[in-house]
């Protein structure tokens, strides 16, 4: 059912854990099944300096979180914001029934970024090119 890359991320998931006082945090639950994901972000100068996640779910869910975290680590927020679940499910080659797991990972990531902006509204302005004080 799963491609090698999924099994690899499943067996050796990257970036597992939590962050103290995260700059961005989200917890997302799948309505389709019991899958749940927590994602923690450390943001420095508009980029994701550190990312950690914890996942309850099947191999596709675990692999999607791991893969997503690896993709965004060190990247600018704009890159992470532009990511779609298709980017993840295509790379992982997830079967139709498991595509919703990749959606969960990317949704969690976007929600965590939103959380960061909610706490740091000035960062959103800086992103948009507005001058800050």
């Amino acid at each position, binding site marked *: 059912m*799963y491609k090698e890359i999924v*099994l690899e991320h*499943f*067996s050796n*998931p990257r970036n*597992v854990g939590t962050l103290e006082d995260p700059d961005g945090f989200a*917890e997302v639950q*799948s309505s*389709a*099944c*019991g*899958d*749940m*994901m*927590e994602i923690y972000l450390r943001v420095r100068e508009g980029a994701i300096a550190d990312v950690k*996640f*914890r*996942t*309850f*779910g*099947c*191999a*596709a*869910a*675990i692999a999607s979180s791991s893969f997503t975290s690896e993709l965004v680590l060190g990247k600018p927020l704009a890159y992470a914001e532009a990511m779609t679940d298709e980017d993840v499910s295509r790379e992982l080659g997830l079967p*139709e*029934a*498991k595509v*919703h*797991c990749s959606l969960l990972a990317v949704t969690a990531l976007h929600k965590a970024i939103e959380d960061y902006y909610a706490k740091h509204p000035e960062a959103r302005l800086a992103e948009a090119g507005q001058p800050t004080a």
Partner: protein
Amino acid sequence: MPDDDLLYLDHAATTPVDARVLDAMLPYFQGGYGNPSSRYSLGMEALQAVSSARALVAELLNAAKPPEIIFTSCGSESDNLAIRGVAQALRGKGHHIITSMVEHHAVSHTCQQLEREYGYEVTYLPVDRYGMVDPASVAAAIRPDTVLASIIYANNEVGTIQPLAEIGAIAREHGVLLHSDAVQAAGHLPIDVQALQVDLLSISGHKFYAPKGVGALYVRDGVLCQPQQTGGSQEFGLRAGTENVPYIVGLATALELACAEQLSEAQRLATLRDRLIDGVLAAIPQAYLTGHPAQRLPGLASFVFDGIDGEAAQLHLDMNNIACSTGSACASSEAAASHVLSAMGVEGRLALSALRFSMGRSTTPETIDRLLEALPGIVARLRALSPYYQPAKAH
């Protein structure tokens, strides 16, 4: 064997065909290939093979006479024939059916279809935390318009064995027909349809080392049942279709072999099962056995584990060459957690962690030991990345 290294612990899902069963079947593919309805020697030989198989199965189930055994394609077909067949035959009497909350889908979905499409009323009896039906609840549910009760003999997910003989006595006393899905029980527990006082009973070949694609339904003489597959008059008019001669021979042979070794094998499996249960509960914190502690199938043990998803654990086990079943269903077809565990009061997320191990002829003490070597580490790894796992405080 496909993979000698495979530790197969999913015998409740299916079993390999026994070599002796295959030997009994082979003559009927190219040699004795006649149609049992044909009135020449080749056909009559095929008919003889089917008749002998029928008589053998009747004897093994302690049925009164061979025509009470109807051959089908599988356990699900037998369940469908029993429930819909009796409902249709007795629609003059009423439209009420009693069943339980821990049935296989072949029973529950058939009942649900009768409710939805034909206006039947179905009472789904609750179970206790071990998945056991209380016979008194059967008595309480019976109404003048009840046409059938259907209670599974041994549950496929957790292994609990129902007090079927008691329920049979109650059904008999109230003049209500009793059907039992004995798909997990046949070949593993003794089945005596007289002692159980059942009127219909389903079995499935591939659970006791016969091939997939053959089952049987016991229908007590005098019980009215409408055929669900109509056409020719095979199976005494209850199930049209040219008889699957080799597979019918296979089923009878396999059942005979299983019944002959049933007692010793049950003891052997129970020892292995208990070794597994003790090992899991000792090595893995916050792991719980589901189902009745004593009234359970000899070779089945199902557990739930705080904080993890069963499907992920199953894949780790697969990567360790261990095959088992999970209650988790992170796939769009069946999003809800197990209805059986739910009926037993197991909390939704915990139910998603269910792993079922079912032993069989290939299981040895070494199989269990290798599983016990792999499983604790797998559970620990998944707990390390789970947002839900909280280690219980030591007291």
